[in-house]
């Protein structure tokens, strides 16, 4: 790995972050992906596009989200001073809306008349359905049949918002299969349809575009921390499935070597059981869904099923920029198990009166290990990227409570 003088310069003009990323898609899609790249490039330099997005983020999504000092948790863990970036307070209940508003605005600008999306936990699906309602665009959300069953409240939300939810039964019937099916739809409808990808993965320009839209999280955090403490944070922690909330928080800080950055993958039942979703910890580089990145796979390259209590982390890959940051050594990647996340979930409810989504409960599980080892003047920011309303039924079942 050659030494770089910035960690924020990627991707290159071919969409590569080192060996990762790229555009591994069917030729049918390729010309349209190039068109998307051009359209996004023009839009992001256009002040009127940025103004419109900023207006929506402020008045529709409710940004900026607060940076909240979690005093009771800090006291309980006895170490680092813990702040939450409260992206769970956004409209629709997670960070997903940041990206979706940007992409749907772009879809409008490109004259597309239909939007499709994939979803795992349903948060990205709900956010996309919301933006499509706002912009009066028909919306189809592909969702693994397994996830449809375990995220029933979000399925109903999407339907209320006017979206069509298509359960996907192929393969393992989870997020990766939903993405396959969305790509299959897109190949057949590409001239009229905008594919709104929910994470920092897929063919270039998606990883960079989604990161840019999510970087509002890190940019706000930086300003808010300067306001609160007069300096940058020391430690950042975020959960990672595809990795969009993490990339959004991390990216503005990558070139500050004093900021320690930790991404937390889902270890499911434990890395050594093989039943997990930790592609960086337990996978190796491969090509899927339009990009090269770390994947869970067998020796032949067949993709293996991911396992996590959290539908939003249940994906056998990860955004290519994370793969690059791992190999560059800039970001530490660790993992938390289902049980650890459940414990963290309950702790946060009782201690701070916040019901987190199971996804950031993984980040919190790592904070519970890390914070006590750090000095009290260590400023730690965890991205609380989603709220847990959608998860209460699954958690109840897991805890053996009948509702």
């Amino acid at each position, binding site marked *: 790995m050659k030494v770089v003088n910035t960690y924020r310069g990627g991707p290159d003009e071919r969409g590569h972050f080192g060996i990762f990323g*790229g555009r591994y*898609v069917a*030729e049918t899609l390729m010309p349209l992906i190039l068109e998307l790249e051009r359209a996004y490039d023009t839009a992001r330099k256009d002040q009127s596009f940025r103004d419109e997005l900023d207006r929506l983020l402020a008045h529709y999504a409710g940004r900026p989200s607060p940076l909240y000092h979690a005093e009771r948790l800090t006291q309980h863990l006895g170490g680092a001073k813990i702040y939450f970036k409260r992206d769970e307070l956004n409209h629709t209940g997670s960070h997903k809306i940041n990206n979706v508003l940007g992409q749907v605005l772009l879809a409008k600008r490109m004259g597309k008349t239909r939007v499709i999306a994939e979803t795992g936990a349903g948060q990205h699906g709900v956010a996309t359905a919301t933006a499509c309602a706002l912009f009066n665009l028909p919306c189809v959300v592909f969702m693994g049949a397994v996830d449809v069953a375990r995220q029933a409240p979000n399925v109903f939300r999407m339907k209320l918002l006017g979206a069509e939810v298509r359960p996907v039964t192929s393969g393992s019937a989870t997020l*990766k299969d939903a993405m*396959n099916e969305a790509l*299959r739809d897109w190949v057949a409808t*590409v001239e009229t349809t905008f594919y709104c990808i929910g994470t920092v993965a897929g063919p270039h320009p998606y990883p960079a575009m989604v990161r840019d839209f999510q970087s509002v999280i890190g940019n706000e955090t930086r300003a808010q921390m300067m306001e609160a403490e007069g300096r940058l944070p020391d430690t950042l922690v975020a959960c990672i499935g595809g990795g969009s909330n993490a990339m959004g928080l991390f990216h503005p800080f990558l070139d500050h070597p004093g900021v320690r950055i930790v991404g937390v993958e889902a270890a499911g039942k434990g890395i050594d059981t093989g039943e997990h979703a930790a592609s960086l910890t337990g996978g190796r580089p491969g090509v899927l869904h339009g990009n090269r990145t770390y994947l869970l796979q067998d020796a032949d*390259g067949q993709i293996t099923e991911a396992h996590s209590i959290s539908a939003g982390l249940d994906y056998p890959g990860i955004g290519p920029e994370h793969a690059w940051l791992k190999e560059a050594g800039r970001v530490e990647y660790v993992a938390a198990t289902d049980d650890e996340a459940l414990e963290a979930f309950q702790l946060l409810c009782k201690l701070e009166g916040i019901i987190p989504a199971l996804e950031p409960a993984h980040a919190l599980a790592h904070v519970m290990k890390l914070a006590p080892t750090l000095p009290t003047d260590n400023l730690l920011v965890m991205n609380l990227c989603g709220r847990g309303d959608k998860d209460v039924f699954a958690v109840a079942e897991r805890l053996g409570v009948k509702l």
Partner: protein
Amino acid sequence: MSRIAARFARLAAEKRAGLVAYVSAGDPDPDLSFEILKGLPAAGADLIEFGMPFTDPMADGPSVQAAGQRALKAGITMDRTFDMVRRFRAETDQETPVLLMGYYNMIYQRGVERFCRDAATAGVDGLIIVDLPPEEADELKPHASKAGLDTVLLTAPTTDNKRLPAILKYASGFIYFVSILGITGTRSATEDAVANHVARLRTQTRLPIAVGFGIKTPEQAAAVSRHADAAVVGSAIVDRVKVGLDKDGRPKADLVPGVLSFIRTLADGVRSVRK
């Protein structure tokens, strides 16, 4: 001359188009799959596309997805796929081109150089990699060329004349024109649309042109043959494999003959057109 070039030269001499038959390696199980493979030349397949089953075939419709799932469930691996081609060359046929079709991760995991060497050694003639557009083809092309494998790139209705030179830079053997916007085995293009696109491609390349996606009947195969150098049929063939299974997924006695006799009707359709 490569087997692919020799085959297209012979088709030109016979003044007809060729039939490219797609079957998934290992479908419905490795033994029967090998029986089908062995029977393809006699059934009238001029070229063979041997699909490499993949867990996540993004460009394939339900038929080819199901075929791949059957094969993976029955234990197909890359080693066994190469072994089938090796036995096919040793026992059955030295002349009919065999191309492996599939997704890049299968190649990348084996190591591109090793994959190309293993494929060529087994008797494979070319690769058709669905998710490797010219933007990424430079990581495969040198190794394929070194091993003597053709790289057949795809063009689509969305591929404009500006993009074609980039595709032609990496293409060899023939050009595969995907005749519809969509995945395999779904809708079909009109004959006019095929004629127009093939004519456009011919102004840019002298490589033979095969047309695929959505060709399901002998009549459609004949219509495409009036314009293209070859017609590719896949989903309709693997559907015949499914027809040959009982309700519990066990092969019935007439599975292999059923698949091969269907291919014979497609070959008759292709051969009904004189050029």
